[in-house]
């Protein structure tokens, strides 16, 4: 950082939402040509800070300087004029239109102020893409591009608006290893051009590869900003959670019992090639791996949601050739899905209806519902899980993320499964709800259930699992006992041979 003039300074930023102090005197700065990594758990205040930067949220207190000029008025338009651009996780692109049209959406080049100057748009678009080291045909419709290339188009779109302060929000969450490398080389090109980059990521291993400085946030507060060479990943994790991992995860190990589920040579679709795994009663088995390694697809295949073949599938002591979801529920399998809003809940049905949805057939074998029983069943789980507010007739749509997750888990437990597959048990929920969910899982396992836990969060895998399977490209690449260190697991997940 030879250039001493910071591109952006945010000083003492405060933002309060009803009941929550989302940002508490946060300082943040960014130099030209720098990658400043911003990390923190969900709910730490990263996205609130970025929304303040984009002008989407007005700040309650604090100052923003762009190249040392104070900016008393700050709103989306001013932010854009000062070169602030966001590249969101969900792309803001048009799938059927070509690359050039997407890059220049809203600021098309025109002939005579009326007609599209397509040739100029294509030349400029391809020059722009080349300047960040990307070679794609600008006449190609977006949907023919891979995810990484689409992301490059999104970045080029930001550059076409003269972005100097570029926010990349979890840019690698949907990318393969090769695509991540491509993204990183683009980011390096952007640094050469003097663009300042704020890089938000949950993948701590990336920080060392791409970052210059790292800022850690927790509970709306700034924990610290460090030069990347001066910290280790463990330091960062410690700063993020503020506690030691062992204290955070309440796993009380107890010796496992019989094999509850075992599968050999499982194949399904394009993502599951050859999976062998077994789970015992009383055990929490972690299933780790990068996004796209086939973990969720494995769970879906075992549950019978996708068509599959297996050399051997044994559940609760019985062999099966095929299984379908309703059969799976009957024999005592439960699948708590990753995306609760899409796959787990009926948002505009009441909490009561959601909670009894899976177990209806079990509690009402005659097929006729009795409201009193329905209510008492639902109430049992509301109490057990401490769902707040305990209002049975409220639409689950209005519950917080953590409480929604408790409803999803409660709904499955109401069906009394013995083998539970739980996909990303604590994604997007706050720290309090998180430790509650972990405590339930611990209880469940110790009361004799078999649990397969899929998780992308390394601390969760390390802290909760009794055994860990690591998946890589549709295969189980390794099996590790409790106490294995994260690097070992990560290396296997990335395909490095032992």
């Amino acid at each position: 950082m030879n250039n001493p003039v910071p591109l952006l300074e945010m000083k003492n930023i405060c933002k309060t939402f009803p009941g929550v102090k989302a940002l508490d005197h946060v300082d943040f700065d960014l130099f030209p040509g720098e990658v400043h990594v911003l990390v923190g758990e969900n709910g730490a205040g990263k996205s609130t800070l970025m929304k303040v930067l984009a002008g989407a949220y007005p700040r309650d207190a604090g100052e923003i300087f762009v190249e040392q000029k104070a900016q008393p008025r700050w709103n989306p338009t001013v932010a854009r004029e000062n070169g602030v651009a966001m590249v969101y996780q969900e792309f803001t692109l048009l799938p059927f239109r070509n690359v050039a049209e997407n890059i220049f959406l809203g600021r098309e080049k025109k002939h005579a102020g009326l007609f599209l100057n397509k040739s100029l748009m294509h030349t400029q678009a391809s020059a722009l893409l080349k300047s960040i080291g990307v070679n794609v045909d600008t006449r190609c419709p977006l949907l023919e591009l891979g995810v990484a290339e689409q992301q490059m188009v999104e970045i080029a779109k930001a550059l076409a608006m003269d972005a100097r302060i570029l926010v990349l929000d979890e840019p690698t969450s949907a990318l393969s290893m090769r695509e991540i490398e491509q993204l990183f080389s683009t980011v390096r090109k952007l640094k050469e051009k003097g663009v300042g980059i704020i890089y938000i990521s949950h993948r701590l291993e990336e920080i060392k590869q791409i970052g210059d400085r790292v800022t850690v946030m927790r509970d709306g507060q700034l924990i610290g900003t460090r030069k990347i060479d001066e910290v280790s990943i463990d330091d960062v994790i410690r700063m993020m959670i503020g506690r030691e991992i062992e204290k955070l995860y309440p796993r009380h190990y107890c010796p496992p019992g019989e094999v509850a589920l075992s599968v050999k040579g499982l194949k399904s679709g394009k993502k599951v090639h050859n999976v062998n795994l077994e789970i015992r009663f009383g055990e929490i088995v972690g299933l780790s791996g990068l996004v796209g390694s086939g973990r969720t697809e494995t769970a879906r295949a075992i549950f019978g949601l996708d068509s599959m073949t297996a050399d051997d599938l044994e559940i609760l002591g019985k062999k099966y050739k095929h299984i379908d979801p309703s059969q799976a529920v009957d024999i005592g399998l439960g699948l708590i899905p990753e995306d609760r809003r899409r796959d787990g809940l009926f948002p505009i049905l009441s909490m009561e209806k959601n909670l009894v949805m899976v177990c209806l057939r079990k509690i009402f074998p005659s097929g006729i519902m009795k409201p009193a029983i329905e209510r008492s069943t639902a109430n049992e789980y509301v109490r057990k899980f401490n769902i707040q507010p305990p209002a049975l007739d409220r639409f689950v749509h209005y519950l917080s993320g953590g409480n929604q997750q408790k409803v999803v888990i409660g709904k499955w437990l109401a069906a009394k499964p013995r083998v539970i597959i739980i996909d990303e048990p604590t994604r997007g929920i706050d720290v309090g709800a998180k430790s509650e969910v972990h405590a339930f899982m611990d209880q469940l396992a110790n009361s004799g259930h078999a649990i397969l836990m899929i998780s992308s969060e390394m601390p969760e895998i390390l802290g909760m699992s009794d055994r860990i399977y690591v998946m890589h490209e549709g295969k189980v690449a390794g099996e590790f006992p409790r106490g294995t260190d994260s690097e070992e697991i990560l290396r296997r997940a990335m395909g490095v041979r032992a």
Partner: protein
Amino acid sequence: MKFTNRKKIFRLILEKIPTVFWILLLMVIYFSVSSSNFLTLGNAINLSRQGAILLTLCLGVVVVKITGGMDLSNGAVMSLCGMIMAWALVNLNVPVYLAILISIIMGIILGTLNGFFVSILGIPSFIATLGTQGIAVGLSLGMNNGNVIAGLPKVFYEIGNGSIFGIPCPLWISLLVFALTNLILTQTPLGVYIYALGGNEEALKLSGKPAWIYKILAYSYSGLTAGIAACILTSRNMAAQPTVGSGMEFEAFAGVVLGGSFIAGKGTAIGAVLGALFILVLRNGLNLLGIPTYLQLAIFGTVLINAIVLSTLVERWVQKMRDEERE
């Protein structure tokens, strides 16, 4: 390598040329063989005079369909525009060009009303345009107590029945509308925004553009084409009939979907024309074969559903080939 290239060309052909084109081709061949009256100049001229109305409507509907909406009102709006135009011609003795202008402006007003409901009030387009349809039907029935308005001036006859350079006027008109629609959709920023509304409305808003205005404009355009179609229709019949357009909205909608606008963000002017032609040729051919009306309706429905199913299947097939190519 060569094999994959050939596969890609095959995929591009399937993708770029709407499936309805091939079905249309088959239909034309079938009717030409089975009816000696089908492939004649007389029939072509007759078809183009009658068909120009549906063609014009389709070109408006496709714009709305690309934004992700639908327009159920344009049949009724067309009837109402025709009634008002005829009323002005007969009772106020306005000159023909002014009557045409009145019809077009009336169409734009009703279309904009749809746009207002959908864009500003946020009513689903299905309901909003159904409401406008009701209003338009009611007004056109009320205008002359449900009766036809006839006795239009002689000059007016030329619009629907005259020819220029041997080509029927209605065809000229619909060709002009086609050229205009195609120009807007492919050559202007407005066209990009229309596609953007259907593809990803949020993206358009994030790029700082007033998306709501473009949405209104799409419906206004559909109203405009209904106003133009009303001129052709009223002149063809030399009378305005209050319920003449009922049912046309569904034909227009079916035509547009057949023409490749299956989902929001997709559709072209040329596709809309092909879709409209499909419906016209099918009806005309069945007529010439002397098939009784009740049977015609059943056959029409069956062929329509099959054509849409086939188009959807091809669409999925193309998608699959595209995925394979990427791997």
